[in-house]
């Protein structure tokens, strides 16, 4: 016999009741609410007053181009917007094909972010062309989304397109020489562009290393296990700055004499070496989460070690660690600010360079708050998306 459970009665508290329950339930609760509430109100008023009357936001708008793309040549800036268009279109289509909330949220934010930057570009006098390009990209996300809904492409095609977009973007940004796409050296890359390039290159390149290290750490060959463990613990035991510093000094020395690499490449190498250890630990978590029955079944079917890893273990493990890797990407994005210390002009480096101009002397708060706000919007969005992804994949529910 089944008993039907009745839902609890809906509490009709009303605003007053809600406040009594959530803000003034006891006398110390009420005291806390009043004290915290007044401090908060005062602080909000003070900050609003400062930012509306005293703050010199001109430092941001006057240098907006630098914050966005650093010293990338003005005439070639279209190449950046073009690679953003590719990203926008693919993101829109992906949002349509993969119905998950996380990818849709990210795509929506990609559109909103570009629209916002476009608006700022218009205000800051970067010219209507740049603003138009960014706004066009924002709409491209929506158009691609609609198109993807109407005429779905296969996931395989989409994955291949994403893979192909990497070399295309590199060619677009770096160039191949010649009049159409002159080479723009990475020493000219800066601002948000550099921040993103460093973070994306870091996570993409470190991924294969990380997977290999994780497999190595769980290997039953003692030598392989020791080497992998030693690498992971060594990297995780030292701060990123020391690795960046090491990379910027050592890499030129480690390469044969006739190869020159500039600071950006050195930073990329440092970040990759660093994040590989963290990817490895994430992947290890995913490997440990696989039920041993899966591995036994693979043995029973007579699969070789390589087949077992490729077809049984890794697909499940990597799927489980997607949210953790989004988290890693977020911290990597924040950590790219450290390249300022070895003299690169990422968005923070640009900010410090701008503050060195006599004209903007003392506008520290404005510059740093602007940079903090950029990071907050990007990282908060991604972390929310990763929570949704986690829920969708059911990772937390084991």
């Amino acid at each position, binding site marked *: 016999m089944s008993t039907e459970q009745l839902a609890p009665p809906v509490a009709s508290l009303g605003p007053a009741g809600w406040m009594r329950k*959530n803000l003034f339930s006891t006398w110390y*609760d009420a005291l806390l609410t009043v004290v915290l509430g007044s401090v908060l109100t005062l602080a909000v008023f003070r900050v609003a007053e400062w930012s509306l009357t005293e703050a010199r936001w001109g430092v941001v708008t006057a240098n907006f181009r630098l914050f966005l793309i650093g010293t990338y040549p003005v005439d070639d800036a279209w190449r950046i917007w073009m690679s953003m268009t590719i990203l926008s279109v693919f993101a829109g289509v992906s949002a349509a094909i993969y119905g998950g909330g996380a990818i849709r949220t990210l795509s929506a934010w990609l559109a909103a972010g570009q629209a916002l930057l476009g608006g700022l570009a218009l205000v800051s006098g970067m010219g209507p062309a740049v603003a138009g390009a960014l706004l066009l990209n924002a709409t491209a996300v929506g158009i691609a989304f609609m198109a993807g809904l109407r005429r779905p492409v296969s996931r395989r095609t989409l994955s291949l397109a994403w893979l192909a977009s990497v070399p295309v973007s590199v060619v677009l940004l770096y160039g191949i020489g010649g009049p159409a796409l002159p080479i723009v050296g990475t020493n000219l890359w800066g601002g948000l562009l550099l921040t993103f390039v460093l973070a994306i290159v870091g996570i993409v390149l470190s991924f294969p290393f990380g997977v290999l290290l994780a497999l190595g750490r769980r290997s039953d060959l003692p030598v392989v296990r020791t080497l992998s463990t030693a690498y992971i613990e060594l990297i995780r035991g030292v701060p990123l*700055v*020391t690795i960046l*510093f090491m990379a910027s000094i050592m890499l030129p020395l*480690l390469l044969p*004499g006739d190869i020159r690499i500039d600071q950006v490449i050195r930073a990329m190498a440092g970040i990759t070496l660093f994040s590989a250890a963290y990817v490895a630990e994430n992947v290890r978590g995913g490997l440990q989460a696989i039920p041993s029955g899966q591995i036994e079944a693979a043995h029973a079917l007579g699969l070789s070690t390589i087949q077992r890893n490729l077809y049984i273990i890794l697909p499940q493990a990597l799927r489980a660690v997607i949210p953790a890797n989004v988290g890693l990407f977020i911290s990597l994005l924040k950590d790219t600010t450290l390249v300022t210390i070895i003299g690169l002009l990422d968005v923070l480096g640009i900010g410090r360079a701008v503050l060195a101009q006599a004209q903007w002397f003392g506008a520290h708060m404005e510059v740093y708050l602007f940079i903090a706000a950029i990071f907050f919007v990007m990282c908060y969005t991604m972390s929310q998306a990763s929570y949704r992804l986690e829920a969708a994949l059911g990772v937390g529910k084991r």
Partner: protein
Amino acid sequence: MPPWRDVRVLRIIAQIAAVLVVLAIGLVLWGNLTTSMARSQLSFGLGFLDSVAGFEIAESPIPYRATDTYGRALLVGLLNTLLVSLVGIVLATVLGVLVGVARLSGNWLVNRVAAGYVEVMRNTPLLVQLVLIYAVFLQLPGTTNSIALPGSIFLNQRGLFVPRPEIEAALGPWLTFVAAAIVVAVGARIVSSRRSAAGRTTRGIGLIGLAALVVLPVVGGLVVGAPVGLELPVLERFNFVGGLALSPEFTALLVGLVVYTAAFIGEVVRGGVQAVRRGQVEAALALGLTPSQTLRLIVFPQAMRVIVPPLTSQYLNLAKNSSLAVVIGYPELFNVSRTAASQTGQPISVIVIVMAAYLTISLGTSLLMNIYNRRVQILEQ
């Protein structure tokens, strides 16, 4: 079975191959390194540690002059790193627990404010936070218009001035009172557990021990005089005299590290407390434990088990993140080593020493925390 099908043989071959590959890469890199170092006239060696550093270090816990050696300069950096890390860990733990408790609070406002704090801290780079805090510091009023905080604490452009605890002559006699208090408390504890084992009531005995712990030291203080005095900072004509002066760099770094790490610790604490199943608390209350006993005996030990491992990594992060102080000019290990590296012409030796130092700190801390963790985990059985 032929040897090339024998798993045992294959395993050995695979491992030898792995070693050979690593060795080969290492040899190639080493070859490149030595040739390019010879070309750019760099060298290895630790000889520079004994030569004169020739640069000043703004603050140091041990005496240091520009005429001291590089070895001593690096030691000063290491001590500064340890100092800011240790103080930071203590303060971040306190603030972090507060944040975690606030996140668990039923008060909507407190809960939301704590959540907002955590999100802002976690989603902006620490480096940006540090330069921002330092910028705030530099905009503070000058010495004569210092911001006076309760408890003789003064804040101005030149730093934070706080009272300094001083050991008074009465400390020795006072400690005998403390010892007496401990003896009484331990005695009460033993009596209490004996009675409890014999099935008799223990009511009031715990209270006696607690009272002894509080009352005896206070009485002692009244009888022999205060054991620890406070030297207050006093504003003289141009600057504060007396007390403990914390430089703007140190204070900004400490504040930055503490507020940043506290957000993460707050989440760790919240996760740990929430990981204790509701049924545990209900069962404890049903068994007749008081709410404070429930917290102390049921919730806390189980939460600690979840909290300790991620807490360890937060402590380690704090220590490693102290290296970011280089942007605001606090002379910690990385900052000093960077100066040393550029001056000595032996950057590789310097950076290897520094990495080894950080590695030792990291591994040492995880070792200690693992030992503690094992003690906490044993409660499970």
